[in-house]
């Protein structure tokens, strides 16, 4: 970890992302103003010493809403990555353990099938079928994380199965499941961390997009995407309504991506490939 902080990209990215994670945590205990109160008399105030980011069309403090919105974005993205890891990694490991078998074929074709669906479109469909909510947004985003993690862990695991230490374990009589979890999984965690960081940032963008078209977090839960949607007719006379939530998204995503890139370079110094 110390090594990571010596890389400027990681340090900058980590700082940017951490600011928002801390803001999200802090919002559980304290925000400058309550975000569920409506104060029409003080609507659309420009940024000032009392309201750092100004107030929105219902008189709520935008700084406080950005803090609470961080909570929504981060929670949605983390759970969506969690779904991808918890379901995708075992599937990928299983496929690798039985390479060429029917199981492998079914898992990989299932993956291809999910990849073939335009992601945003299916997310819209899911929320249209089951109703718009943060939970359904998580599911919609999470589903598309499954094949990502399945594919990456299968690929990495396949090359590990030919390595000597795995062969040794097989000779010692360990079963495929045990080998997968005891020997393969620990050796692909670095890769999973890198991919997780990237999927995390993609999740934040996806949540913002879904909320923007009204299919993500619902009132009264503040969300960056919904703040942008609510403010869009007012951008021309109150630009602060769109600028601050937009900047919050950009900062967080940028921070996570910088971290992901730096970690990739760190874990895989041979190739030093940049993310695709």
């Amino acid at each position, binding site marked *: 970890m110390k090594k990571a902080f010596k890389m400027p990209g990681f340090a900058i990215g980590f700082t940017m992302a951490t600011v928002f994670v801390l803001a999200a945590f802090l919002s559980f205990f304290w925000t400058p103003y309550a975000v569920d109160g409506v104060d029409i008399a003080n609507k659309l105030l420009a940024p000032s010493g009392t309201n750092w980011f100004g107030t929105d069309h219902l008189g709520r403090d935008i700084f406080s809403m950005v803090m609470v919105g961080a909570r929504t974005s981060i929670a949605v993205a983390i759970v969506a990555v969690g779904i991808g890891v918890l379901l995708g990694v075992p599937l990928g490991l299983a496929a690798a353990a039985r*390479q*060429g078998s029917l199981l*492998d*074929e079914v898992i*990989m*074709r299932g993956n*291809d*099938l999910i*990849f*073939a*669906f*335009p*992601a*945003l*479109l299916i997310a*819209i*469909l899911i929320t*249209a*079928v089951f109703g718009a909510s943060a939970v359904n947004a998580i599911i919609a985003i999470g589903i598309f994380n499954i094949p990502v993690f399945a594919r990456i862990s299968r690929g990495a695991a396949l090359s590990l199965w030919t390595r000597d230490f795995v062969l040794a374990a097989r000779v010692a009589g360990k079963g495929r499941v045990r080998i997968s979890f005891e020997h393969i999984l620990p050796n692909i965690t670095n890769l999973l961390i890198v991919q997780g960081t990237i999927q995390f*940032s993609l999740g934040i*963008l996806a949540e*913002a*997009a879904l909320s*923007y*078209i009204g299919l993500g977090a619902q009132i009264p839960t503040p969300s960056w995407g919904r703040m*942008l949607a609510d403010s*869009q007719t007012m*951008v*021309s006379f109150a*630009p602060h309504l*769109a600028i601050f939530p*937009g900047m919050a*998204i*950009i*900062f967080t*995503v*940028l921070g996570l*991506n*910088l971290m992901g*890139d730096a970690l990739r370079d760190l874990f895989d110094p041979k*190739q*030093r*490939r*940049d*993310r*695709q």
Partner: protein
Amino acid sequence: MLRFILKRLLSLGLSLIAASVVIFFAIEIIPGDPARLMLGINATQDAVDALRSQMGLDQGLLPRYWLWVSGLVQGDFGISYTYRVPVAEMVQGRVWVSLPLALYALGLSTLIAFPIGILAASRRGTWADWLVMGGTQLGIAIPNFWFAMLAVSLLAIKYRLFSAGGFPGWEDPFLAIKALTMPAFVLALPQASILARVMRSALLDTLSEDFMRTARAKGRTVRGALVHHALRNAMIPVLTILGLQFSFLLAGAIIIEKIFFLPGLGSMIFTAITQRDLIVVESVVMLLVFAVIIVTFIVDITYALVDPRLRRRP
């Protein structure tokens, strides 16, 4: 090679069947009665029932699935519940917005990405490289709908350089292209950022390979080596990404089409969902999935042609 193509074709067919089942049954459980929606809140139950039977909604799920799929195969996409016109007819008009938009965005993306990707690779570690890498990071991080909001508010409302959206039709190609320029640019920005990064790293990968070292040892300059050898070898990953981006652009422009009120496939699906026009949603989603599967298939085959090792890929 033939065996490889046949195998891919088989899996393509299976994917299509699986996709049709998933789409049909997922969409049929969308809550909301299309007949009630069409008649409005003050309509009597009798009137709604009459319309339901007119639209064939009182038949079972399986017969409806069968009718739908057999129609699709013959190019009959059914008749829109809401507009009462053949879906195929509606799609035709929309494709001529969505397809040119996707191609335009892809073209812009390539035009931006290639030069800056090559620049960054050939000047690795210099300020130019840093600028490209930083700028593309930013390009990926900016949500495109936010960028679109700002672009409309500045370029259309404040400076009135472009119209705010809409599509005038292809009668006047200049106006049509002008109308697609702002949305295409907004769509292209993140794609170009990704592409430029792929381009750079692919070039750097090939640059480090042995034959490049040989070329350089033979006295070629870095740029000469780049243009003559590395670029061709770097095209494989770049083409893959382009294939992915094309299918993404075709289907993923929903939000952008909505912001610029372009009458394309994306906005058609979006309104169809709110109108509970299941036939339209099913058929257009199926069409898009079909397009994605075909593009993937073509990329796979091209890949295998270029690199025979891949034919043995499980």
